[in-house]
C-alpha cells in the first residue's frame, strides 16, 4: 500500500537512530535512498546493511552551501529526488538565562535553516515533475515547548510553520509537505534516565511506553507514499498520546 518502487529519497541525519530507521523503511518499500550525515563510517555501515540502491552522501548541514550541493549530488547520481526527509537535527540545551547567541543560532541553522535550504533545492526538480514529497521531522516540543530547549523548540515549531507555507506554495504542483512530530523515543540518551525519571515520564504517556524509531519511520513511509496524496500541511504527532493537539 505504501510502495515506493522507482522513487528516490534523501534522508538527512541517517546516522542517527531515527534517521537510520527511516532509511530502512523507505528502502524496504522499494525506494532508492541517499543517506546523508556527518559520520561517513556510520553511513557506510548502514549502506552495507541495506545493499543495493543506496547512495552515501555525507554533508555538513551547518555549511549554508551544503544543502544545494547535496541535492545536486543525489540528482546526479540517482537521477532524481522524489522524497526529501529532513531528519537531521541536534540539541544544545540550556536555560534561556544561560543560552548564548551561538547556542541559539547553531541550532536554528542546522535544525531549521538547513531543512529550508534542502526543500528549496529539492522543489525545483519536483516542480518540473509535478510530484514530490517533503517530510520534516519536528518534535513534540515544537508544540508544547520544553524548559531548557528554547532554541530547539523554536526550530521545531519553525519547521511546522515552514511546512504549512511550502504546502500551500507547492500544492498546485503535486508536491506535499508534511511534518512528523515524535514524542519521547527510546534512545541511548533516554536509556540513561534513572528508574524514577522513567516512571515520571511514563505517567505522561497514555500508551505507557517510549516510542521506537520504527514508530516514526512508519509515519514517514506513509507520508512519503502515494497513499498520502491528499495529506499536505499536516503535522502527524507520534507520541503515545503524550500531547494531543
Amino acid at each position, binding site marked *: 500500500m505504501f510502495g515506493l518502487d522507482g522513487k528516490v529519497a534523501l534522508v538527512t541525519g541517517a546516522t542517527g537512530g531515527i534517521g537510520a530507521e527511516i532509511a530502512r523503511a523507505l528502502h524496504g518499500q522499494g525506494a532508492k535512498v541517499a543517506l546523508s550525515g556527518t559520520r561517513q563510517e556510520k553511513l557506510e555501515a548502514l549502506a552495507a546493511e541495506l545493499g543495493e540502491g543506496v547512495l552515501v552522501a555525507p554533508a555538513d548541514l551547518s555549511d549554508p552551501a551544503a544543502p544545494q550541493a547535496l541535492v545536486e549530488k543525489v540528482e546526479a547520481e540517482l537521477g532524481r529526488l522524489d522524497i526529501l526527509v529532513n531528519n537531521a537535527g541536534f540539541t544544545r540545551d540550556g536555560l534561556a538565562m544561560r543560552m548564548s547567541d551561538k547556542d541559539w543560532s547553531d541550532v536554528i541553522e542546522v535544525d531549521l535553516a538547513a531543512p529550508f535550504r534542502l526543500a528549496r533545492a529539492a522543489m*525545483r526538480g519536483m*516542480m518540473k515533475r509535478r510530484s514530490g514529497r517533503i517530510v520534516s521531522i519536528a518534535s513534540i516540543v515544537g508544540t508544547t515547548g520544553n524548559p531548557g530547549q528554547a532554541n530547539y523548540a523554536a526550530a521545531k515549531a519553525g519547521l511546522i510553520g515552514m511546512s504549512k507555507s511550502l504546502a500551500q*506554495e*507547492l500544492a*498546485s*504542483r503535486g508536491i506535499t509537505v508534511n511534518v512528523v512530530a515524535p514524542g519521547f523515543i527510546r534512545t541511548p540518551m533516554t536509556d540513561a534516565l534513572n528508574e524514577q525519571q522513567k516512571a515520571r515520564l511514563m505517567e505522561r504517556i497514555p500508551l505507557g511506553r517510549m516510542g521506537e524509531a520504527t514508530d516514526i519511520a512508519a509515519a514517514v513511509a506513509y507520508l512519503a507514499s502515494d497513499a498520502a496524496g491528499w495529506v499536505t500541511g499536516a503535522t502527524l504527532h507520534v507520541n503515545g498520546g503524550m500531547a494531543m493537539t
Partner: protein
Amino acid sequence: MSDTAEKVKKIVVEHLGVEEAKVTDTASFIDDLGADSLDTVELVMAFEEAFGVEIPDDAAEKITTVKDAIDYIEAQKAA
C-alpha cells in the same frame, strides 16, 4: 522573429500549456496566459537555464509579458 523570441515563446508554450498563437509579444503571463505566481517563478528559472543568464528578483518582477522577457534576455546577452 529572433532566435531569442522563438526560444522564449517555445518555453512559455511548454510551461503554461497554452496555444502558440496566444503567445504574442504583448501577452501578459498572468492576465492573458493564465499563469499564477509560481508559474512566473518557474518561467524565470526556465529562461535562466535555457539562456545561461541570471535574472535577479527585482528584474524578474518587471518581466510580466512575453516581450519583457525577450527584451531582458537580449539585453543580457548583448552586455
